[in-house]
């Protein structure tokens, strides 16, 4: 008898323990703090420092744009596609040598100091031009910023600088820093870079590494009645599935930047209370590009490059890899930039026969095993879609007799191999279109760029005609003339194919239906969220 009782008891302990563990928490895991004012957002990365004036990247803007404001923000309706922020109006001179900005009055920094033109002059001369990754291009010939009064700043250039480019660059490049905090100190290592002080609708309150960023309402914000929210929490969720789970469990309100993977969108869109939003990313278009190493003899032949373009089924890429959340590309400027986009370019239909014919013509007949030659393909590891497209491209090129060896690297190894060592034949790259070809696009095909510059022409492509066109457009002040030059630029690039543009895509947000005013400007995720609200 006792034998039985022993094993039963021994069995009962763990069972009781397990049940105890399971029923321990009786209350559901809802958010503790009172709702209404606190928006909780998923963040998939923690930028090294948060200063948007030094680092113009979406990861930095995502958090910092609520605290530090640019001169103007992108807009669906506004004049020139802009909406005033710290600037109220702006005008470029006819000769392109000066650009005058009128600044908002009555704005104060979060520490109470007044915002003046001296802050703008300081930011432009000491930060944007010498330090910022994009500002170095846009303000390369900036000589001085005059401040005739506290609310006027006049930018003076040594070379004609197109006002159109400056206006296009304003949302991303012109985040204004407080001069009284940064002046006389090393800007790159200033501790304020992680404890931001700005003029924006939210103040930086707290950062717990690996856990969250907390922003709180700026009671003295210059725009009456804004911001609507009391608090924004950026919760660090590095795992892709974590954001989807947290949304479904109601722990967060919003996941931006496609943190919920494309394959999960259909399922999560059907969860009651959640919606998938594609608006608010129009000015953050990514381009799926096949970059080519022209040092390879076969690839230096235009017919071979055209054959590769004919071998790619863009519709398949859009439908199968991007699940429809993308558009087929026609050239180096995306359709999302209508003021620059030129549809009138050569077209390379999906046509395997034509591709084969071009390769035969170029003098690369199929060998006994059906192979013409082989290439090393390095897909960029940054997105699931770039890797998947690499897999697709391998099969597509096999159809036309090009054997592809896939080489998968992690991020630093990929950057080194492609942009410093040039140890590749073709690579799949996702450059960002930054609203003006002069900022983001011409660098992909211009010759003479030193080694080691990521996301630039490191394929050894040289075309004097194209270079001349790029240089002329860079200093053409008149907007219509400038646009005409970029139209010609697009035609020439598509005709010569120094690289092959395959698709254009942007991100998606998944948000609780309680969040109001999501995606109401073309850079919504990286704008200030002053009008974003939360239904109780």
């Amino acid at each position, binding site marked *: 008898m006792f034998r039985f009782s022993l094993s039963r008891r021994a069995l009962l302990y763990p069972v009781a323990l397990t049940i105890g563990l399971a029923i321990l928490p009786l209350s559901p895991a809802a958010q503790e703090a009172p709702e209404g004012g606190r928006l909780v957002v998923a963040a998939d990365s923690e*930028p090294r420092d948060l200063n948007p004036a030094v680092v113009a990247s979406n990861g930095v803007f995502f958090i910092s744009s609520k605290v530090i404001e640019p001169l103007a923000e992108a807009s669906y309706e506004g004049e020139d596609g802009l909406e005033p922020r710290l600037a109220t109006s702006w005008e470029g001179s006819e000769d392109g040598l000066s650009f005058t900005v009128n600044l908002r009055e009555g704005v104060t920094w979060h520490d109470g100091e007044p915002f003046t033109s001296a802050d703008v002059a300081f930011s432009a001369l000491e930060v944007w031009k010498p330090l910022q*990754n994009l500002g170095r291009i846009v303000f390369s010939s900036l000589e001085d910023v005059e401040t005739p009064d506290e609310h006027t700043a006049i930018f003076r250039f040594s070379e004609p600088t197109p006002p159109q480019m400056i206006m296009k660059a304003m949302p991303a490049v012109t985040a204004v820093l407080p001069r009284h905090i940064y002046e006389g100190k090393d800007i790159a290592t200033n501790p304020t870079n992680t404890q931001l002080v700005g003029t924006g609708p939210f103040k930086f309150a707290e950062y717990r*590494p690996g*856990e969250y960023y*907390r922003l709180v309402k700026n009671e003295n914000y210059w725009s009456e009645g804004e911001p609507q929210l009391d608090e924004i929490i950026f919760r660090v969720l590095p795992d892709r599935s974590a954001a989807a*789970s947290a949304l479904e469990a109601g722990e967060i309100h919003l996941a931006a930047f496609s943190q919920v993977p494309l394959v999960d969108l259909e399922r999560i869109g059907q969860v009651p209370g959640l919606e998938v939003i594609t608006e608010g990313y129009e000015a953050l278009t990514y381009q799926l590009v096949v970059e080519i190493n022209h040092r390879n003899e076969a690839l230096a032949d235009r017919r071979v490059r055209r054959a590769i373009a004919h071998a790619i089924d863009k519709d398949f890429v859009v439908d199968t890899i991007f699940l429809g959340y993308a558009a087929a590309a026609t050239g180096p400027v995306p359709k999302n930039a209508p003021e620059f986009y030129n549809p009138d370019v050569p077209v390379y239909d999906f046509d395997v026969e034509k591709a084969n014919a071009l390769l035969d013509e170029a003098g690369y007949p199929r060998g006994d095993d059906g192979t013409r030659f082989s290439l090393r393909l390095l897909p960029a590891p940054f997105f699931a879609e770039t890797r998947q497209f690499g897999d697709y491209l391998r099969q597509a090129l096999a159809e036309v007799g090009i054997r592809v060896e896939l080489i998968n690297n992690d991020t630093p*190894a990929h950057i080194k191999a492609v942009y410093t060592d040039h140890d590749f034949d073709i690579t799949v790259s996702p450059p960002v279109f930054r609203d003006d070809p002069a900022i983001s696009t011409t660098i992909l095909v211009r010759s003479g760029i030193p080694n080691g510059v990521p996301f630039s022409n490191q394929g050894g492509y040289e075309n004097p005609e194209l270079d001349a066109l790029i240089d002329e457009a860079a200093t053409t002040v008149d907007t219509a003339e400038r646009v005409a030059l970029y139209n010609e630029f697009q035609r020439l690039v598509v005709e010569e194919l120094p690289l092959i543009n395959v698709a254009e895509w942007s991100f998606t947000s998944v948000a609780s239906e309680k969040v109001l005013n999501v995606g109401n400007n073309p850079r919504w995720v990286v704008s200030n969220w002053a009008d974003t609200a939360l239904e109780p």
Partner: protein
Amino acid sequence: MHRALKLVRRRALSSIPVLLIVVTGTFFLLESATGDAVDAYLVSLGGGDAELARNLRETYGLDQSAWSRLWLYVSALARFDLGWSVAFNRPILDVILERLPNTLLLMGSATALAFLLGSLLGIVAGARPGSGVDRLLSVGSLALYAVPSFWLGLVLILLFAVQLRWFPTAGIESIASGKSGFDRAVDIARHLVLPVCALGFIYLALFLRMMRAGMAEIWRQDFVLAARAKGLARRRIVLRHIARNALLPLVTMLGLQAAAMLGGSVVIESVFAIPGFGRLAQEAVAARDAPLLMGIIVMSAILVILVNLLIDLAYAALDPRVGQGERRT
């Protein structure tokens, strides 16, 4: 106590060459990977020009040769200076100390769960080797052992956090909740339930199998026969004579598992968004931040050495024979 001190001193001295080998090995492993910290950083900027890259490499000493960087690192380490993290732009010691408690909490709880529940279930199974309960537990634990921990973590999240909403999906505690003291401890405990189960259940099977196998073996020994002949209660035989003897190898296993669990926590910390050591190590590799990674590895090595020291001390307490051997040397 004197014996324990001697053991500690001997272990501390012998761990110095171990640490040196670990540091050098890590350094050259990471050195052999293409791309450096500046390459990784430039991507996070979305690009940058050649001058910027050159300036950054100069700032972080990445333009120097590998040997001189290793020498600088080791000589700084000898002064207990872990250096500056490129990826976080902060002192490495700060970054590490911030994350260490979370990992210790996660690993400690998971180890305790695996050890206690594992040996308990092992006793249940080993009390009647070959019985139905034994078979059920053996098969069940084997199945659990075969499951990858990240998958178990995701299933637990789906079931208990998304569907039932008993526990939070991720994180170490509620965000800016303003809780303190006991409330905060309860909050952290609730956040830890799922990750601890996901990490602990995998290792539970190991302890269970080991306990059961040890007990099955001891059942056949003469002293057990003698105890049964003496008419001792079965419960007493199982607990006092068999289980206690079978427990010793488990203690050894505990030390070995501490290192393995440190590895397992990389995955669990990512799935559950817990800012810990494992996730930090992964971030350090992705950012090619060699000093940070070496700092983490040195700290982990110290941790493993410490755990094994504790195990040795516990061993000496549990088994008198160990102490005698120590005295002779």
